């Protein structure tokens, strides 16, 4: 049932990728995503594929974990592929009424699907190799400059990490409340949509009440432990760049430069 939901799933392993500073991985993911969007030609995608394959290999995360994340986008992928296949202008191969299949369409659809798949694999590679804690730390420090324009970066990061802590607790609680209401004869499986929506009230109300009660108690407990926002706060594990992080940044820069170079050289050839 609800227990099957996994959020921020992390694959524990000792790999150079796992050991990187979370900020490097955040930037790396961004660089990879940008590289997928700057150009659409075979050489660039070959380089991107090689790069992705190398990172996956180094990360020691089994490939099947990457594929797992793809299930959720099958629908979007098929939809955009079909859309591109038939609605791209170009040299027609076959024509059904107003729909025509073109070479350009096939090419466009193929790139589209590959881009989507790489996008998911790239970002799940980050969540699989970074603990939720590191991720929020990375975001907090990496986006620290936003503080200057009054964005409460620390508070947002704190909220994210508290949410991560309480999600499993609330899932378990939902399970328990559901069972308790089933024991009182509640029926969640029969009836039309409206009846089923109404049947959720005995679950949602206690769940909200409980979430508020927990939030209230947690706030008191945090206050009692001298929490007063991000100001003057130190860290047990402060993020500091090490030599390997610098190396990783250099590799990323090299990759991006290479991609841009290919794009410039081949400009006009395929795009």
């Amino acid at each position, binding site marked *: 049932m609800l227990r099957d939901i996994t959020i921020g799933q992390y694959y524990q392993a000792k790999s150079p990728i796992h050991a990187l500073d979370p900020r490097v991985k955040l930037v790396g993911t961004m660089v990879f995503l940008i590289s997928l969007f700057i150009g659409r030609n075979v050489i660039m995608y070959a380089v991107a594929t090689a790069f992705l394959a190398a990172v996956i290999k180094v990360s020691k995360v089994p490939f099947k974990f990457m594929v797992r994340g793809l299930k959720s986008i099958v629908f979007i992928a098929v939809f955009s592929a079909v859309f591109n296949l038939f609605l791209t202008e170009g040299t027609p191969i076959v024509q059904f009424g107003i729909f025509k299949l073109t070479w350009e369409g096939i090419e466009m659809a193929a790139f589209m699907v590959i881009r989507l798949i790489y996008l998911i694999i790239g970002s799940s590679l980050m969540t699989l190799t970074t603990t939720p804690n590191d991720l929020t730390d990375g975001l907090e420090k990496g986006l620290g400059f936003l503080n200057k324009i009054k964005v409460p970066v620390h508070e947002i990061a704190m909220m994210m990490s508290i949410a991560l802590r309480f999600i499993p607790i609330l899932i378990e609680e939902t399970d328990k409340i559901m*069972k*308790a*209401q089933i*024991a*009182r*004869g509640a029926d969640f499986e029969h009836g039309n949509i409206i009846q089923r929506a109404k049947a959720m009230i*005995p679950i949602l109300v*206690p769940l909200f*009440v*409980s979430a508020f009660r927990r939030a209230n108690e947690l706030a008191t407990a945090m206050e009692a432990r001298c929490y007063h926002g991000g100001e003057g706060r130190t860290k047990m594990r402060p993020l500091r760049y090490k030599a390997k992080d610098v190396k990783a940044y250099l590799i990323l820069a090299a990759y991006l430069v290479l991609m841009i170079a290919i794009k410039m050289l081949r400009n006009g050839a395929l795009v």
Partner: protein
Amino acid sequence: MSIILDKVNYVYEIGSGFEKHALKDVSCVIEKGEFIGLIGHTGSGKSTLIQHLNGIIKATSGNIFFDGEYIYDKDYDMRKLRNKVGLVFQYPEHQLFETDIFKDVCFGPRNQGLPEKEVQLRAFQALRLVGLEENLYYQSPFDLSGGQKRRAAIAGVLAMKPDYLILDEPTAGLDPKGRDEILGHIRKLHDETGIAVILVSHSMEDVARYVDRIMVMNDGELIFDDKPRNVFAHYRELESVGLAAPDVTYIMNDLKRAGFAVDTDAITVEEARDNILKMLNGKG
């Protein structure tokens, strides 16, 4: 009229690599009108066992019969079982959801499809059975104390008029008076209506005082199933599975060891008192 468990096994998360054998060949018979205490440390399988009794969890193997009917039969109506076996979970006040107590208690009987008049009648009866003052019936759950909310939640299950009432640690987190009130009302309820009660508890003192039969779970197995006096006589074995006897049992054993001619099978303060008085008078 009984619940029969025949070699019930339950394994959590089969095939996930984190399998846990939560119940191992549990067999027992629970008769109508009994008052049973179910004890065992956390994770011993108590909660899993009680959830089998009203069909919320289905056994991995083994059979359960309710009033002579096999509950895993294709044609068996699970709702019938749930109407007859009322289950009160831990901290039941957390499941209250209506704007007032009375409406909340009506939820169960209304789900049973009873006419509105009957629903309300049952809600009244149930609230009276748990001893909640009438001026609280139309209050919001937020305005009640912890003990009052808990009694209201128990009434929510009682209103379905079950033949068996299972309570998972009904006194957790209450103060001593609130604890005695709840247990007192449950005992009274049992004596007056003849409802069978299964009380899951961590307090040996409470169990010794209220129940007629004790079932002890350890590591998924039912290791004792007997009268309280006989179970607590095995206090050494109970200790080895993280449990204990009531403190008075230890007092009597200590007295005996110190050379006093007392019986060691007292399990309540009253029994211990009478036994010591008898011993003193016998001497004097």
